[in-house]
């Protein structure tokens, strides 16, 4: 079995009375890319500081290749740990040019000046910093500063690289490009990476495993797929995009649990951790806006269709009918396809017979509040019978006041106990 | 003291004299050094490792000329630490555990007298040149022979600015300084800070009694007396016009006059309290021969004459007979001295009184 390169056991850190981290434990294997996701203020940066050796744990232990590098009484200094870090606030040295900032670590390694030059030329290319080498940090834009910070950290080719929200100030295109290039680079160099981010897409696309944190502790450590499919806690589900949450009362418990929510029965995956939900207790049900499918009530259907028609008129002729393939709204379509493809259809929904709810799905009656354009789709705000609000994605705007039902797939609907707050 | 006869013939502080004088002291600890002193420096270094070390003298004047004069005359090497009297006194006191000086030569007789009382000075040694001293000087030598005076000068004379007064209107007695005529016009150095100012006030306290003296100085202060930290400050204030008359150290006064400043000097008839410059040897000195040679040298009339002719502080009354004081020094200069032992004993309280006056 592989030996972990880094192990944390029961790490704790407090600032004054407030505990920023407690009982944090995990293992990282050589060459792995670990992404840390967690809400603002949950202790991600603090964790990186402990690993880097910039702060000392109050409790617990950190081991690197089996040797203790930090506990409450001792701490190997950062410069002896063979790591490097991109700081959330960059921490560029304002008195040094971009080149000198990047070259700093290489000079510490006593590299030849020619080697330094070529290494940096490479990094500058990778990070699109050409022509900025002689600038001072204050003469750069925010995104450029961030890229310099990344280049500086990459330059030393560390064993373990700590990245604190390294791409937060870059535009989407650059971010996607950079994360692909960085992931490729890390895999090629075999760099172990510990990567804090607030962008689930970034975590999914770069990470071998994801650590999901909440309030100073770890909620879940697993592969991106596993985290995506079954978030361990309500907080993890929220972080991973399940932005809709309703309260209800547990009806049944089993492989799927079900909840009485504002009159409707909603099926979903029960929590993986902790005690099972018991019938009768209050619980929450969460799902991603893109996991629900809108189906208008028959009597409103005409209205809905009309709006769709007017929306069509609004766009360039002929484009609209295919415009919908854009995105996350396509639940119904998928189902339709599933049916038409003749496979073992789990959800035999008829597009025209809306009263029928497919197996493995639940229907939630809602009323539309309003719709917001979001690029490939519209985000629709709606309310349940008892005024809990929720959003879902739809290919077209829906008229305010329209009534209908949202079809939720049990496998993509998550149920959590109330006390698992956070 | 029986030893002084042995070197009675010696004039100047020659090595010869030093040899003879020590050989008769019987101070065994000094024998090796004494021998070394008799020989050349090279020979000496073979016998006693310390003997080629220079003699260290703490002094507050004459530092420019005394070193070459002495070295030339005796062959001993000399090293000087110069400073104002108060600083040197502190330094000496602080060094008490491990003194660095061999000889003190300062115009701080009460302080040195106290050192003698505390047993820090070499006693019971009589320099050959003692006989050649004036009666005035002989009268100042303590019974223990712990120090010998090399000269005396007025700690204060009355000096006035000739632009403000003429000979007639100028103050002529100490008492007159308290006169309303001289309100806000008189200055002096602070006895609590300036070393030479102490002998001046000490004489008042001893001769008039503490109460009368305090009354006198209080009346001066009421009359707007300005008290400067040191004598040079007084001198500057006088020439600068800040004050018009002052009780100023004699040498400062004559220096001003010699430089052509518009000042004149008055020697009060009742006498000017004197500051006596004395030389004393450290008890544990490792260079006793050189030290004695140095004291002999200072008591030598020729040396004193040279100091008067070439020295910086040349205005003083020599302690050796047959030495002529500076030509422009007043002939009728009358010096009065507070008894050293008394002044030494009361120094603390008198200075304290003055310091406390600063509050009022």
């Amino acid at each position, binding site marked *: 079995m592989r030996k972990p390169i880094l192990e944390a056991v029961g790490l704790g850190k407090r600032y004054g009375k407030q505990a920023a981290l407690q009982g944090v434990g995990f293992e990282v294997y050589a060459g792995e890319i670990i992404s840390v996701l967690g809400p603002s203020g949950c202790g991600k940066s603090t964790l990186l500081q402990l690993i*880097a050796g910039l702060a000392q744990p109050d409790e617990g232990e950190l081991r690197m290749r089996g040797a203790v590098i930090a506990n409450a009484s001792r701490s190997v200094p950062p410069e002896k740990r063979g790591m490097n870090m991109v700081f959330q606030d960059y921490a560029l040295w304002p*008195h040094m040019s971009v080149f000198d900032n990047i070259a700093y670590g290489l000079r510490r390694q006593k590299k030849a000046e020619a080697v330094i030059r070529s290494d940096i030329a490479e990094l500058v290319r990778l990070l699109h910093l050409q022509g900025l080498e002689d600038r001072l940090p204050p003469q750069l834009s925010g995104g450029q500063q961030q890229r310099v910070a990344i280049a500086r950290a990459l330059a*030393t080719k560390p064993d373990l690289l700590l990245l604190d929200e390294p791409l937060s100030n870059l535009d989407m295109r650059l971010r996607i490009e950079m994360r692909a290039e960085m992931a490729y680079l890390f895999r090629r160099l075999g760099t172990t990476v510990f990567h804090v981010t607030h962008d689930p897409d970034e975590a999914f696309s770069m990470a071998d495993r994801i650590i999901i944190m909440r309030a100073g502790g770890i909620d879940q450590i697993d592969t991106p797929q596993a985290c995506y499919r079954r978030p361990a806690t309500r907080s993890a589900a929220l972080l991973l995009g399940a932005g809709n949450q309703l309260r209800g009362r547990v009806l049944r418990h089993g492989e799927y649990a079900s909840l009485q929510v504002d009159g409707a029965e909603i099926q979903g995956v029960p929590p993986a951790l902790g005690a099972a939900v018991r019938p009768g207790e209050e619980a929450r049900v969460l799902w991603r806006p893109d996991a629900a499918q809108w189906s208008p009530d028959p009597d409103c259907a005409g209205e809905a269709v009309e709006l769709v028609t007017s929306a069509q008129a609004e766009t360039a002729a002929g484009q609209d009918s295919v415009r919908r393939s854009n995105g996350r709204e396509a639940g119904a379509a998928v189902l339709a396809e599933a049916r038409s493809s003749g496979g073992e259809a789990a959800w035999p929904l008829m597009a025209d017979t809306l009263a029928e709810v497919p197996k493995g799905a639940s229907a939630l009656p809602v009323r539309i509040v309003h719709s917001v354009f979001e690029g490939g789709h519209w985000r629709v705000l709606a309310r349940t019978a008892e005024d809990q609000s929720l959003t879902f994605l739809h290919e077209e705007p829906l008229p305010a006041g329209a009534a209908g039902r949202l079809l939720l797939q049990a496998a993509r609907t998550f149920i959590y106990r109330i006390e698992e707050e956070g | 003291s029986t030893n002084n006869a042995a070197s009675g013939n010696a004039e100047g502080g020659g090595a010869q004299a030093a040899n003879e004088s020590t050989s008769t002291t019987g101070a065994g600890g000094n024998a090796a050094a004494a021998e070394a002193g008799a020989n050349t420096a090279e020979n000496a270094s073979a016998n006693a490792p310390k003997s080629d070390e220079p003699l260290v003298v703490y002094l507050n004047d004459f530092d420019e000329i005394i070193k070459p004069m002495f070295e030339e005359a005796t062959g001993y090497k000399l090293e000087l630490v*110069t400073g*104002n009297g108060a600083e040197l006194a502190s330094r000496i006191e602080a060094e008490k555990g491990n003194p660095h000086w061999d000889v003190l030569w300062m115009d701080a007789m009460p302080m040195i007298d106290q050192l003698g009382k505390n047993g820090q000075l070499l006693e019971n040694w009589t320099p050959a040149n003692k006989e050649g001293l004036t009666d005035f000087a002989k009268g100042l030598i303590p019974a223990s022979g712990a120090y010998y005076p090399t000269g005396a000068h007025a700690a204060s004379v009355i000096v006035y600015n000739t632009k403000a007064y003429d000979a007639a209107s100028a103050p002529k007695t100490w008492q007159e300084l308290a006169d309303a005529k001289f309100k806000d016009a008189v200055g002096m150095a602070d006895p609590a800070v*300036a070393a030479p100012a102490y002998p001046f006030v000490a004489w008042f306290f001893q001769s008039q009694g503490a109460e009368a003296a305090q009354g006198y100085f209080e009346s001066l202060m009421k009359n707007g007396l300005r008290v400067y930290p040191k004598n040079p400050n007084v001198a500057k204030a006088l020439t*600068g016009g800040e004050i018009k008359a002052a009780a100023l150290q004699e040498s400062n006064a004559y220096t001003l006059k010699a430089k*052509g400043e518009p000042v004149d000097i008055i020697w009060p008839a009742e006498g000017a309290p004197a500051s006596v410059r004395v030389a004393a040897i450290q008890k544990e000195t490792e260079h006793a021969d050189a030290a004695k040679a140095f004291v002999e040298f200072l008591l030598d009339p020729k040396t004193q004459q040279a100091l008067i002719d070439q020295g910086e502080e040349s205005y003083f009354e020599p302690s050796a007979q047959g030495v002529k004081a500076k030509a422009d020094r007043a002939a009728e200069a009358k010096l009065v001295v507070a008894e050293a032992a008394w002044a030494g004993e009361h120094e*603390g309280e008198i200075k304290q009184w003055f310091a406390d006056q600063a*509050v009022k």
Partner: protein
Amino acid sequence: MRALFKQGDRLGWLMLALLVVLILLPLAAVVIQVLLPGVFFGRFALGDLSLLLDIFKRPLWFASLKNSLLLGVGTTVLATLLGGGLAAVRARWAFAGARLLDIAVWLLLVTPSFILAQGWVMFASADGLAASWLGWRWLHDLVFQPAGLIAVMTLSKFPLAYLAIHGALAWKASRLGDAARMSGASPWTAWRTIEAPLLLPAIASGAMLVFVDTVGDFGLPASIATVFRFPTLPYSIYSALYTSPIRFDMAGALSFYLVLLIVFAMLVQLLALRRARFDFLSSRAVKNEPRRPRRGGWLLASGNALFLAAAIGIPLGSNALMSFTGSADAGAGGMTMAHYKALFNENGALLTGLLHSLEIAAGAAIIALLIGFLVAYVLTYSQFKFRRTIDAITLVSLAVPGIVLGIGYIFIWNQAWLEHVGLLLYGTPWILALAGIAGAIPVVTRMITGAMAQVPGQLLAAAQMQGAGFALRLRTILAPLTKGALLSAALTAFGSSVFDLAISSILYPPNYMTLPVVINKAFEDLKFGYAAAATLTGAGLVIIIILVLELIVRPARRTERKTAA
């Protein structure tokens, strides 16, 4: 950042040990005289502790304490305002004569205070230059009173505040000021509420230096306060030390009160800086470059000229006059270069003294810079338990008159047993170097701490992550970011220790004359012209050295800007 702790702790102990040896031990040696008067001479008799309470009984002592406090507080407030204001103006605007201001500041700083005092006395006395040349008879009454003394002190001590604050103005927190403007603050409000408070550490350092230096100064108050009696603690200390039987115990008791004053000042500072953070240097920080004002450039220039005329012209001008005439009475004698000629032909006493002083001062400044830098590091970045103690000790040597410290040095470094271990430093030039270092540490540490407070630990942490060890981090990140302050600190230390009279006069080894001893001696011999000439020559030389050093070190800034543009 917090992890700089461990290192900080080790370094903290080292610095504490060094400061104890250099400063605290000598002082303690004097203060302990209260408890055990004979301890260094092998007597272990218990002293009279009631001496410590005498401050409330003896009128002189009590008045001294009161006066010192009044003088210290008054001067601190005024000099900090003046120095800070000048520094702010100088850092923000370029105007004609700005360079002169720098020179003036250095001049004031290196010139011994008794010389400055003399200049003021010559100028303002009843028959002084002001009265005789300008007919300003009123000036006399204005100057020779407590308020006047404070004013003169202010004009002499503001350079400490100026340099401490100017050093911290090297970097601009412009983004933070911008944020204030966006929230509706006028430029002045933004300066008042954001930019100035961010300078608080530097301002506090400057104020502290002024306070401590004022409280510890003997020469200036003693010379000005002749007409009105105004004894201060140093005065009482002098009178205790200059009174035989010499009362080290009294000096110790009084020094103890000086130390209490420092503690008092530090408490005030602590209160002012409580809980706030001042580390604004980020990737957005830019170097401060003085700009030409759009309007009112001439106003600045002439204001500056006027100010310099008072602060420099009066004290140094009078001395300069003295150096050419040998007399305060300018009319007499006429001009002569004689005094300057005399400097160089009297078998070189001055020259060797000057060389000795420069040697000692340079060595002391360099070592003090090193120590001060590390001490500032401990104060700024570590959580070392005894940080406050270190902080307090660094100030002691400025507040306690040099002579007290000098005596302490004798006590400590003149113990017979030291000879056997080859450490009998008293009587060798080493003792002067040690004392010089001790004397320079307060200034150096304060100035650096003020600037260091701006540098977030994050920037050091970043270097650490790049594999830079402790020394390297300091050398490549911290030192360059605080360069301005480091330079000021080193030069101040150098300049002021060249003329540090009190210490060298009590400690100088036989035949090792130093410049201040030579000057003081000339002064005591009433060779005022010579003394003035020697002072001005020495000061001039020191200023030239300082300016040359500045020129060598500072232009890096200009080239940096060029590559940036």
